[in-house]
């Protein structure tokens, strides 16, 4: 279920898929949060959910945590959400945003080595 590899975030092989189909709120967002927490910053997670509330909640979660919602796509019975676990209001994305905690950090986090967590 979890693919690994030292490649860029746009590479499909680097995207973790979390299957939350059939789960009701707040579990889809919880599974997404857990997957992101287990991965290095900058990872991308693909969440599959059937709960209609997830459409609003994933977007709200992304906004509250300062993440990026790259894509929302209807795939028949479920919806797929592509979320990137990196700050959308970081120094690179929004110069007027809150000051960065460590000003010496590079603007975008490069893909870090895999931690290879167990299956969610």
């Amino acid at each position, binding site marked *: 279920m979890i693919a690994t590899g030292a490649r860029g975030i746009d590479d499909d092989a680097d995207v973790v898929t979390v299957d939350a189909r059939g789960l009701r*709120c*707040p*579990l889809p*967002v919880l599974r997404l949060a857990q997957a992101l927490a287990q991965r290095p910053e900058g990872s991308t997670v693909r969440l599959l959910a059937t709960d209609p509330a997830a459409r*609003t*909640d994933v977007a709200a*979660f992304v906004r509250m945590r300062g993440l990026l919602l790259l894509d929302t796509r209807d795939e028949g019975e479920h919806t797929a959400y592509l979320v990137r676990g990196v700050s959308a209001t970081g120094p690179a994305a929004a110069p007027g945003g809150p000051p960065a905690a460590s000003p010496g950090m590079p603007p975008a986090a490069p893909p870090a080595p895999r931690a290879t967590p167990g299956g969610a």
Partner: protein
Amino acid sequence: MAAAWEAGWADPRRLHAEGRRARRLLDEARAVLADGLGVGPESLSFTPGGPSALRTGLEGLVYAARRTGSRLVASAVEHSAILLLGRHAASVADDPDRFEEVPVDGVGRVDLAAWAQALGAPGTAVAALQSANGEVGTRQPLAEAYERCRERGIPLLVDASAGLGRDDTPEAYDVLVGDARSFAGPAGVGLLVVPPRTRWRRPGPHTEVEGGRMDIEPLIPLALGAAEAWARTAAARAEDARAARALVETIRVAAAAIPDTEVVGDPVDRLPHVVTCSFLLADGEALVTELDRRGIAVASGSACTSSTLEPSHVLAAMGALTHGNIRVTVPMESVCPSRTEDVAALVAALPGAVAAVRAQVASR
């Protein structure tokens, strides 16, 4: 209320002494409420509840405007009685343009530019807007929205059922709707105000009931109870609202201090007594239960607590989190003398309750 049942049981249309007494009591109840709302008593009709007043009020405007068109415009955060009526009309006509839901911003306030644009679409006959939202408390820009309606000669129904008696009574409307529950009156009393200047006509056969606007006689004891509630709370209204506003502010501050929390709705331009908070990765139903276990009664707008799977249409329209919500309605002090202590207890219990529920959720 017991006294009201004792006094108002008779049929007010009969000429016997009990009937005349019941008629006089109904007239008095109507006079108290009409006076409170700043309208003539002939403009005020009693309905069997707020949603029923919304439906009746809207149907009369639509019917009277049927030669202008049949299109209805409403904000996306209106009461479901309005939204369901509009969606039903569009569905039956197989014409999605028959009803337009105007979007709101992140605090739940209607987008005035989109509102004006929606009113400008051909065939627009009637518009509906709440004075404030009962879930998140945000007040709507009624004066501006009404002005846009007037420019186009479109009648506006204003739904004041969330805050009548707690906040200023709206003045900019063609039809006004309220619910006695908002000012601590009994359930089952809707207030429908149709001033003489408004073009309004009930579809269907002529009736003599409630100024020709209803076909159901009001329950006189309930109408008396509503008038009694209004009169009892009128004197303390401004001071009560000021204190309720401060209590809600303490809840907002306490909730915002909890990590991953959003306090939704406008922080300032809002009803004095309502607030909704969203706690990320918490379960709304579990939170309501956890607070109840600690002796505090709140409501939830989360999808998990409703019978349908659909999330709150208000929170969804705002783009707010639809899980992990609690809605707090601060009652009037006259019906809940311990409200200050109750809010203090809620504020004290909230961080622990949220942490407990988040721990439960995380273990699933």
